[in-house]
């Protein structure tokens, strides 16, 4: 048992017969950034998407063990997935703004939650855009299509969209991997700001990025959680040979 | 507490609503299956008694079709099966090279301007109803062929093939073109970067990569040709005999049904035998489409 907001115990995940995650025990610290690293196909994305049950979309999956959010296993039968996803927001690898106006993108989550009050909506939109550090860039063009923004701006817009419904946890699957270094840096800085108010879990291919943005790092390999610990520990003095080999590039 | 129960209520309501919506769509989705099964069983039910009466052997292996003969009714469909295949083959011989060449031109050679002109042309050609094509066959192609080959009229298998080629061309061109255009740009770039000319790239990389799509387009064109009714009805002369050359008049399976169903007695053996022909057509096109389907699926897998 743990006092953490979110933790997993003996968590297993199967794609049909393929055992994609094996006995994962991890504690996600509140108001910290946890990075998931590991070679391609080790199950990072699968794990991330297990945390808000986005994997449910995929047919033939099967889970075992617990993922506990606020003391409640999210895989229990009576859990409302829709509500869960509202509490555990997600940002995707490729920015995916809806082809609506900037304003409507951010307002979307509020509207589907039944918020009708105009002034409430526009206040939340402004707040979210500010939190996502994109307000200054778009405040004069909220009515324009979100598709006209640059890649980095789109990604921050998607973050704003996720923030608008006030999630407690934000999951990010390689949020900067499609961006150029400058846009990437902006996203990294944003993550650093966001952790003041949110708990963040981020998957990244880029070890350096994990090193830069996270407080805790989890190293996955072949579906197993090899090592989990403070980021500076993992990158300066990892506890296990496998981790050391991976971070120093002696792997594979 | 009250709030909590309200939340649970809304959650329950939401779930119910979602379930209802999904079921509604599912019911619609099942309709296609019902229709297909309906067609299959109806053809079978309506046709099977005739087959029993006539006998398999005569029905499939005799080429004598004379249901209205006062002497002895004959129900052999061999001649029309052969006619159908022959006309179809002729059509493919004409349409396949032309269609693929045109598709390659559009996808790889033509400038955007040319493409903007030619693509709508193909679409319009696809839209021309079969009666209109048949009409042209009677009025223009027929006389032309009779003059060319010195026959009394030009309503023969060749005419049918020519017209069917026109009918099949749009299918072949547009699906092949799709296949060729969806060959990833990267393949072409790679080839060019290795010092290949555009022609070499087209022949050695692009077309082979699109081959399954192209083959599928040919199969689909073939299915279309086999099932085509009005053009062949109007342009092939309607002679229910085993043809020996392309310059003879022929009558295909589809044409037979079209001509004769109106004159039959419902429930009679003639009526039922036409349903059997329909059934055979159904099966033939089924297999042609199945093959093209398998090929297309493979091609989609490769290009993913």
């Amino acid at each position: 048992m743990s006092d953490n907001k979110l933790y997993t115990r003996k968590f297993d995940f199967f794609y049909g017969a393929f055992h994609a995650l094996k006995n994962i025990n991890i504690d996600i610290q509140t108001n910290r950034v946890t990075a998931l690293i590991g070679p391609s196909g080790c199950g990072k994305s699968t794990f991330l998407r297990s945390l808000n049950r986005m994997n449910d979309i995929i047919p033939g999956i099967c889970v075992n063990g617990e993922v506990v959010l606020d003391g409640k296993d999210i895989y229990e039968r009576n859990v409302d997935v829709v509500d869960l996803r509202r509490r555990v927001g997600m940002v995707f690898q490729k920015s995916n703004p809806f082809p609506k106006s900037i304003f409507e993108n951010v307002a979307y989550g509020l509207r589907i939650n039944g918020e009708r009050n105009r002034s409430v909506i526009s206040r939340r939109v402004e707040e979210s855009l500010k939190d996502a550090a994109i307000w200054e860039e778009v405040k004069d063009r909220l009515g324009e299509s979100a598709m006209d923004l640059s890649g980095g701006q789109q990604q921050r817009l998607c973050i704003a969209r996720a923030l608008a419904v006030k999630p407690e946890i934000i999951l990010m699957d390689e949020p900067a991997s499609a961006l150029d270094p400058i846009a990437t840096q902006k996203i990294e800085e944003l993550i650093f700001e966001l952790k003041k108010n949110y708990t963040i879990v981020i998957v990244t291919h880029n070890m350096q990025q994990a090193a830069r943005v996270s407080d805790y790092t989890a190293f996955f390999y072949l579906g197993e959680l090899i090592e989990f610990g403070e980021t500076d520990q993992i990158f300066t003095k990892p506890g296990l040979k496998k981790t050391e080999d991976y971070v120093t590039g002696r792997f594979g | 507490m009250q709030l909590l129960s309200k939340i649970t209520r809304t959650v329950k309501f939401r779930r119910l609503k979602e379930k209802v919506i999904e079921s509604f769509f599912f019911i619609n989705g099942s309709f296609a299956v019902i229709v297909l099964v309906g067609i299959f069983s109806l053809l079978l039910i309506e046709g099977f008694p005739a087959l029993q009466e006539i006998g398999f052997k005569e029905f499939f292996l005799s080429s004598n079709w004379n249901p209205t003969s006062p002497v002895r009714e004959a129900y052999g469909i061999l001649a029309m099966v052969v006619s159908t295949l022959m006309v179809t083959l002729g059509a493919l011989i004409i349409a396949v090279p032309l269609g693929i060449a045109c598709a390659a031109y559009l996808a790889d050679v033509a400038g955007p301007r040319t493409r903007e002109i030619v693509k709508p042309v193909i679409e319009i050609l696809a839209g021309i109803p079969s009666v209109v094509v048949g009409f042209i066959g009677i009025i223009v192609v027929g006389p032309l062929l009779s003059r060319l080959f010195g026959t009394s009229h030009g309503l023969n298998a060749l005419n049918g093939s020519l017209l069917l080629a026109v009918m099949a061309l749009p299918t072949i061109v547009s699906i092949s073109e799709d296949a060729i255009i969806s060959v990833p740009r990267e393949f072409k770039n790679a080839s060019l970067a290795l010092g290949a000319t555009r022609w070499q790239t087209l022949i050695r990389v692009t077309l082979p990569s699109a081959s399954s799509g192209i083959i599928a387009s040919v199969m689909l064109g073939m299915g279309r040709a086999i099932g085509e009714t009005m053009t062949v009805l109007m342009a092939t002369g309607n002679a229910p005999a085993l043809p020996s050359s392309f310059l003879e008049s022929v009558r295909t399976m589809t044409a037979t049904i079209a001509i004769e169903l109106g004159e039959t007695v419902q429930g009679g053996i003639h009526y039922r035998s036409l349903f059997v022909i329909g059934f055979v057509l159904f099966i033939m096109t089924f297999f042609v489409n199945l093959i093209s389907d398998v090929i297309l699926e493979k091609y989609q897998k490769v290009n993913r």
Partner: protein
Amino acid sequence: MKIRKRNVQQWAGFFILRLAALVIVFILVFILYDIISKGHRVISWEFLLEKPRRGMTEGGIWPAIVGTFWVSLVTIVFSVPIGMFTAIYLNEYARQGRIVRLIRLAIRNLSGVPSIVYGLFGFALFTLYLNLGLSIISTGMTLGLLTLPWTITASEEALKTVPMSYREGALALGATKWQTIRSNVLPYAVPGMLTGTILGLARAAGETAPILFTGVAFFWPILPKFPVNLTQQFMALPYHLFIMSTQHHEIVKVRPLAYGTALVLIVLIIFMNTVAVWIRYRFRKKYKRA
């Protein structure tokens, strides 16, 4: 030297390809030219708006136009909703499994079934078993079945062009499935669905074989009045053309009328195609950056 040879090879190859395209363009131009040049002479308000007279050697084609219109209307009403809903089921709700495979198999086969076979089926089912007789409604429903696979396929294509990310984005924000579909899928798919539907309809409007036995009449000058008269027989443009070009007793005399009918039919179909293409064009332009 070698380089020159390769350039010649390329030039010759491209030349052949260009020729093929030219041939196809020529075919269309020829057909259109022939029909327009010979058909336009008989076109007049009288031809369009009058009934045929004197054993159809004179007068117009108005009943055929009206008949085609009503049949098309029934076709739409019958096939479009089912088609779209099926597509939504397949693309949005269905999980890969036996049932879905079965449905897809059925659709693919339906699209390959020859139109004459639909005619047989419609005849047996609607006119005989369901006792709808030779009527507009039998015919419309037959054509509805014929167009169903096209509508489904076109609708599914349209749904597929909506990026997965729109759905994931909405779901991840806590939208329900139906909310996601309604707000983030359908708006972007409807124009595409419309395009496919219209294209299918244009093809259906030109079909002859399936309607031969379900109610089309050689000569039926009584115009149907909605809704009571959907059970009556009717005339249709393609069938009229068929009659005028092969079955008429004074075939040479009515040839200009046949040309006129062909022209009207083609114009109608090209018009529908153009509308569909226009919608697609606007749709693409609007969401191109998506």
